[in-house]
């Protein structure tokens, strides 16, 4: 599928529809008959208690897990499952709950990997380097530098990411996803392990990407204030089942959700 097809979907229309997705591992049912849809251009949050199946859901969306049953409608095309490479090519980028950066590479190189799909020079030209390959490198480097500026990563450009503190790693991971210039950004707990101030920064990055680059965002997060503040719509999972969905206000007052997840108050 070409990216242009996705780009043709008007904002506010469904870009991903998940229909009755079930997923099980041996005896463990991670997801049971979950359906929801994500609209183009929105910030969509998935919440739920630990082990509810949120991460699994993201893995289904970008093809790392194959659902046992159910269908995925992506940009108007129905399919049983996604393929990771296909998902990447169609503009789905993501970050991971357990940081999945390339530990041996510098921040800059990590971000540059986000551009891999867009680099077209062949092997021979790369070996030769001078000329077209160099031009291409420079072009993408500029793009990446913009992300670096945006996320304020200048000072760690050359640091191997393995030795960065947890929070910064999360930020680099977001950077790598952004460098892909994705249509859809899947974020798995991007703000875990951050303090308020850093969460504010992250929220700002996410929202800016959403507003200015018009990226559709699917977000998993346990900090309710963040979720309630920045998302447009929310779906709630519990034990692999969907137990509620709607706008933040609706969720806040949804009895089932309060029982299963939020507890009495959340401030």
């Amino acid at each position, binding site marked *: 599928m070409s990216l242009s097809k996705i780009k043709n979907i008007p904002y506010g229309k469904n870009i991903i529809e998940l229909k009755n997705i079930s997923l099980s591992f041996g005896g463990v049912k991670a997801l049971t008959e979950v359906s929801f849809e994500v609209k183009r251009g929105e910030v969509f949050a998935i919440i739920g208690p630990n082990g509810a199946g949120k991460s699994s859901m993201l*893995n289904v969306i970008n093809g*790392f897990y194959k659902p046992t049953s159910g269908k995925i409608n992506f940009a108007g095309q129905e399919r049983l499952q996604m393929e990771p490479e296909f998902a990447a090519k169609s503009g789905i980028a993501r970050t*991971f*709950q*357990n940081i*999945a950066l390339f530990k041996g590479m510098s921040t800059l190189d990590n971000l540059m990997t986000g551009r891999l799909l867009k680099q077209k020079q062949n092997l021979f030209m790369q070996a030769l380097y001078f000329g077209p390959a160099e031009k291409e490198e420079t072009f993408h480097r500029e793009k990446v530098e913009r992300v670096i500026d945006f996320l304020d990563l200048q000072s760690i450009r050359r640091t191997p990411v393995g030795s960065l503190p947890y929070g910064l790693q999360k930020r680099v991971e977001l950077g790598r996803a952004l460098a892909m210039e994705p249509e859809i950004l899947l974020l798995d707990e991007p703000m875990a392990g951050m303090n308020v101030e850093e969460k504010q920064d992250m929220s700002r990055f996410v929202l800016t990407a959403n507003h200015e680059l018009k990226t559709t965002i699917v977000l998993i997060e346990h900090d309710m204030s963040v979720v309630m503040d920045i998302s447009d719509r929310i779906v709630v999972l519990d034990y692999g089942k969907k137990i509620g969905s709607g706008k933040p206000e609706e969720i806040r007052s949804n009895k089932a959700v309060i029982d299963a997840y939020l507890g009495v108050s959340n401030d």
Partner: protein
Amino acid sequence: MSVELLNFIETVLNGLMSGIMYSLVALGFVLIFKASGVFNFAQGVFALFAALTLVGFQTGQVPFSHLINELFGTKLHHWYPEIHSFLAIIFTIITMIVLAWIIERLVLKHLVNQEPIILFMATIGLAFVLEGIGDLMWGSDVKVLDVGIPSGGSEWLENATIGLAAEGSEYYGMYIDVLNVWATVIAVILVTALALFSQYTKTGRALRAVADDHQAALSVGISLRTIWVFVWAMSGFIAMVAGIMWGTESGVQFSLSLIALKALPVLILGGFTSIPGAIIGGLLIGVGEKLAEIYIGGLFDIGAIENWFAYFMALVFLLFRPQGLFGEKIIERV
């Protein structure tokens, strides 16, 4: 029964037996890998070292005599006449424990939490050190090792089977080396004991924990030092057993360290982390390679294929189970 069939059975039997001999070496690998995530390439040299030491003790050779003689012009050879092999074995076991302790102190301790390949490399370094020291200590000529384990073809089996062939056919009975039968018995005992130990005891659990994550193991109070000295001593012991078996067959000398290469396909086929896998893998590889050598090799007159055939066989199994037959599943998650 036709002679062909009898020969086939004989080949299979002998294959199984060779397999067990590989298993004895593979077992040492598995133990260390399971318990610390280290792929211990030095296992072969361990076997050599143990066997050298055993012979050295048994015959009362003065360690480092060549070196001392060369440096000081002395004429040292032996300090006592031969002693009973049982005593020699005990001394060797003690040596292997001390060795494990030294290795932990000088090497492993400093490599906690490093990448597996680094640890792997360190064990290769270790192999060199042991090889060099083994040579310095005991000299590099061939030594005859005899701890009283019988070897040679089994008369009993030959006589028992000679009548099985159809009337009038030329058949000489079935061949099996008694030494290998002994190896089988010992291997089975070892494997059972080790498997039970690692599955059902607290220490067994700790071993597996260490293999997964050194740091976390440290953080819950598992003393890597104790664990490592323990497993390395254990695999030193297994190396000694392997060394005795192989050394009885071929004399003790440098080539003994190369048996590690025969154990590797066994290891990947059975799975790095499975003790029973080492045995089953050994049996499969042994039978497979002997059948291949004799039947395929014989058919097309392409001898000496067993070396790569073993690896190919393991490779084919791995394509279906990338963690080996009994290895722990490789966890792939994001």
